[in-house]
C-alpha cells in the first residue's frame, strides 16, 4: 500500500477533459491514505458489529423485563410476566426452570465468547494498485495462481489446483499422461507473478507435480 498520494497533473494528459473547478480535497494526502488503508484493513476482517448488536438486544430485552418487574414490585403491583421471587427461585432452587435458565444463559455466554474471540478473517488479502489499496478475495488469488501455473505447464485448467493459506500457496499439478511438466519453470513463473503482485504479508508458493499423469 502506498503512503503518499500522487496527484496527477491534468496538463500531462491532453486527451483528458478539463478538470472541474477544483473542489477542496477532503483531507490531506496523509489523511486520505490513512483512511483508505484503515478501510482496506477492515475489509480483511469480519465486523463484530452485527454480533454485538444481536447479543446486546437480547440482553436489553432481559434487562427491560427485569426492570419492569422491579418497578411493579416497588409500586406494589402484581408482576407483568414473572415475579422477582420466581426469578430468584429459578436461580437458587434448581428444577426445570433453573435448568432452562442455565442452558439459555450458558448458550448466550458461549455465543458471546465465540463472537469476541473468533479470529473473524474474511479470506482476503491486500495488494497495491497505484496509489490505492486493492483488497482481493483469496479465491481470486488462487485462481490467478492456477491460471499462471497451467499456462506455464501448458496444461488445461482442470489439471491445476491451488490452496491458499495465510502466507503460503500450494499448487498441485497433475500432468497429462505422456507429457512431463517442468516443475522448476512453473515455480519460477508463479514466483514472478507473486513478486509482481506484491502481496502484504508476503506470499510464497510451493509447486507439487504429481508423479502419475492422467488423460485430460
Amino acid at each position, binding site marked *: 500500500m502506498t503512503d503518499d498520494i500522487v496527484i496527477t497533473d491534468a496538463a500531462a494528459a491532453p486527451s483528458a477533459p478539463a478538470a472541474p473547478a477544483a473542489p477542496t480535497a477532503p483531507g490531506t494526502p496523509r489523511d486520505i491514505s490513512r483512511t483508505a488503508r484503515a478501510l482496506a484493513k477492515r475489509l480483511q476482517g469480519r465486523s463484530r458489529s452485527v454480533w454485538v448488536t444481536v447479543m446486546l438486544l437480547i440482553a436489553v430485552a432481559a434487562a427491560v423485563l427485569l426492570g419492569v418487574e422491579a418497578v411493579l414490585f416497588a409500586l406494589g403491583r402484581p408482576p407483568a410476566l414473572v415475579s422477582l421471587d420466581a426469578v430468584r427461585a429459578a436461580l437458587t432452587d434448581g428444577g426445570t426452570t433453573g435448568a432452562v435458565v442455565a442452558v439459555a444463559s450458558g448458550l448466550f455466554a458461549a455465543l458471546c465468547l465465540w463472537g469476541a474471540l473468533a479470529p473473524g478473517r474474511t479470506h482476503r488479502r491486500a495488494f497495491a494498485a497505484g496509489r490505492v489499496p486493492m483488497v482481493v478475495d483469496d479465491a481470486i488469488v488462487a485462481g490467478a*495462481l492456477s491460471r499462471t501455473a497451467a499456462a506455464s505447464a501448458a496444461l488445461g485448467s482442470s489439471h491445476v489446483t491451488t490452496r491458499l493459506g495465510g502466507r503460503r500457496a500450494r499448487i498441485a499439478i497433475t500432468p497429462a499422461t505422456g507429457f512431463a511438466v517442468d516443475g522448476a519453470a512453473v515455480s519460477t513463473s508463479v514466483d514472478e507473478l507473486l513478486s509482481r503482485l506484491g502481496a502484504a504479508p508476503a506470499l510464497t508458493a510451493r509447486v507439487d507435480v504429481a508423479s502419475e499423469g492422467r488423460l485430460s
Partner: protein
Amino acid sequence: MTLGKRVLNRLALLVLAAIGVAVAVTATWPIASGGAPMPLIVPVEDAWRATGLAPVTWAWIAAGALAVFVVIALAIILTRPVRHVRAAVDDGRIVIDDGVIAGLLEAALADVPDVLSVSTVTERRRRQRVVRARIQVRPRADLALLQRRVASAVADTDRRLGLPIPLVVQLTGGLRSTFAHERRVA
C-alpha cells in the same frame, strides 16, 4: 470501524459472556449439588440485609441500574452501523456522487474481459469519506493485468475529477468467492 469501536465490540461481548457465565453457574449449582444454592448467594443476601434498606428501595435501585444498562446498550447499538453516504465529495459547493466514480472506473475498465461489474459505496470514517469500489471479476482472472489496469483506471479517474478521491478497490468473485471457506480453485 475505528480501533475504539473494535475494542468496544470485543469488550461488550466479553462483559455479556461474563454475565451469561455467572447466571449459568448460579442456575446450574443447585441442580448439580442436589438442591443447595450456590454458596456465594448467602453472604450476598446477608450483606444486602445488613444495609438496612427496604426491599422496595432495592427494587428501585435495581430498576435504576437496569435502566442505565439499557441506555448504554442502546447507545452502543445505535453507533454500530457504518454510515453510508451517496456523495464521495461534498465540500458545500461541489458534490460528487460515488456513482460518477463507478461510471469512470467502469469506462476505464470496459475493455478488460475479466471485469464483470463495478459498483461503489461511500463510507464515512471519522471526518473522512472513503469510497469502496467493488469490482466483480471472473474466477480465474489475470490478476497482474487487473492490478495494472485498476491502477491506471484510478489515475485516470483522479485526472478527470481533478482530485484524488480516498478510494479502496475490492476485487471479488461474487458471493461464492466471498463466503468460500475453502480457498481452493480447481
